[in-house]
């Protein structure tokens, strides 16, 4: 991991409570931050001379929802959405994983996509990756310059990579199931 073990304490001293959690024992160690601090932390890890994480490799949204009600009690997690940012540095040859936890729906209203600050002002890669995440996983990135669907048609309904997504029965006269 970038910055070694010192990185976590360095980030904690700079951002305090915004660093919510971390797992440095995992195969890919990760640091969890609160959504409010995402852009600031991103800009810091990109510009810091020791980190220089100038490349954003990938943005992923993981939907944590057990749809089977029998298994839900034993699932071991509350339903939530997890954003994963994989960063790497070309000059320093190291990587870092940032995670952000979001609610599955905004204010608990089913169908209202949750909001997450956009990092497209920090890395241009995020532009298309966030559009894809919005398209497939249903996250609204505040501050994104052009947030519209990228892979699905613009009039598509729903977010296919959500665990409770239902395939539409038909789309413009084409049978779905």
């Amino acid at each position, binding site marked *: 991991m970038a910055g070694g073990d010192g990185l976590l304490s360095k980030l904690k001293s700079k951002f305090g409570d915004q660093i919510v959690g971390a797992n440095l024992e995992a195969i890919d160690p990760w640091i969890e931050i609160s959504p409010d601090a995402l852009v600031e932390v991103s800009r810091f890890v990109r510009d810091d001379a020791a980190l220089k994480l100038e490349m954003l490799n990938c943005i992923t949204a*993981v939907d944590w929802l057990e749809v089977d009600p029998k298994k839900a009690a034993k699932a071991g997690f509350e339903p939530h959405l997890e954003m994963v940012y*994989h960063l790497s540095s070309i000059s320093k040859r190291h990587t870092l994983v940032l995670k952000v936890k979001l609610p599955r729906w905004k204010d608990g209203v089913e169908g209202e996509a949750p909001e997450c600050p956009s990092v497209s002002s920090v890395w*241009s890669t995020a532009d298309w990756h966030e559009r*894809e995440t919005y398209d497939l996983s249903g996250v609204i990135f505040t501050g994104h310059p052009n947030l519209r669907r990228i892979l699905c048609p613009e009039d598509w309904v729903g977010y296919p990579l959500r665990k409770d997504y239902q395939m539409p029965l038909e789309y413009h006269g084409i049978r779905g199931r």
Partner: protein
Amino acid sequence: MATQIDDQRIIEFDVRTDEMLVNMGPQHPSTHGVLRLVLRTDGEIVSEVTPHLGYLHRCAEKIGENLTPRQWIPYTDRMDYLAGMNMNLGWALCVEKLLQHDLSEKAKHLRVIICEMGRIASHLVGMGAYGLDLGTFSPFLYAFRERERILDLFEEVCGARLTYSYITPGGATADLPKGWLQKCEQFLDQFQPIIAEYHALLTTNAIFIKRTCDIGVLTPEMAIDFGCTGPVLRGSGVDYDLRRDGEERYTEMYDGYAFEVICQKDGHYPKDHQYPAVPKDAVLGDCWHRFYVRMLEVIQSMDLVRQAMDRYSVASGDWGVPIKLATKLPPGDVYLETEAPRGQMGFYLVSNGGNIPWRVRARSSSFCNLSVCPEICKGVPIADIPAIVGSLDIVMGEIDR
């Protein structure tokens, strides 16, 4: 030959033109699949390019949430269908990383042979198709003639010619057949002198140079900012190749191999005295350099295959027996990137302890490479659009997934 017009007023005084939206694609031959570009043009000059993707979208990631990792291998084939072997490898390594499964020496060398051959095949199509984009047909035939022989070799190994599903988590589905190494050696010996033909047809061709030099210049900063990888990044002079700089699980495959990252350092490519010189019009990061990096990588891959064959034939251990079809995955998440022909292909796997992944994500290299196209296509003539898009060497199957 600079085609970017700095002073837009020159056109305005010359001819009065209206802005026009021109639709390019989705079936335009130079778009390498079904990509649609909407160009905002002012006469001949393009002021804005908007790519529209998704015509090949199959939601492979959703399918991955319903299959075991080994069952998903055929779907990785169909992402970058011109480099199926390299895609198999990316996913196989990702699963092995989660399982903490280590391979024997022999299995690693086998993978190097197969993947570098896959890289040659893929770059040959990239080269031939780029010729097509620029209006010359012959290089395509020359490229396919050689690619055919690689496909024949792959067919002997796994029975398929395009969607191989050969490399699997745990190793590969079978060992190399008897006598295969000799055939491969034969192919390389025959292929070596042909490279000069390619250089004569394209690299040093006067028209080709005029069409590609100083066109679509991508600065290293911009390339990194947009997440461009592979030959597109190295064509801008960034010294970065995951085979050397990647994760240990991947670079250990190439441990002890002699190879130099193909990129221009201090005005020189590695061993460039053996190959055509860089034209004086070429600017680092233009279409010509991206093309040249691919051509040199073909030669590099041939060298790597030769080294790998020597090691494979004396290595001990088995060829890597695949894991069981429904192996239980430990809870956790792993991300791994490999150097596919088109750039860094990343796979992200999240597991909650079952034998089916909770979430699968494919980070497509062409997706990021294409995202820079609206930036570098600003202010170029329409005729340069195929030259620029072609030089990014995209495969839509991988972008749309």
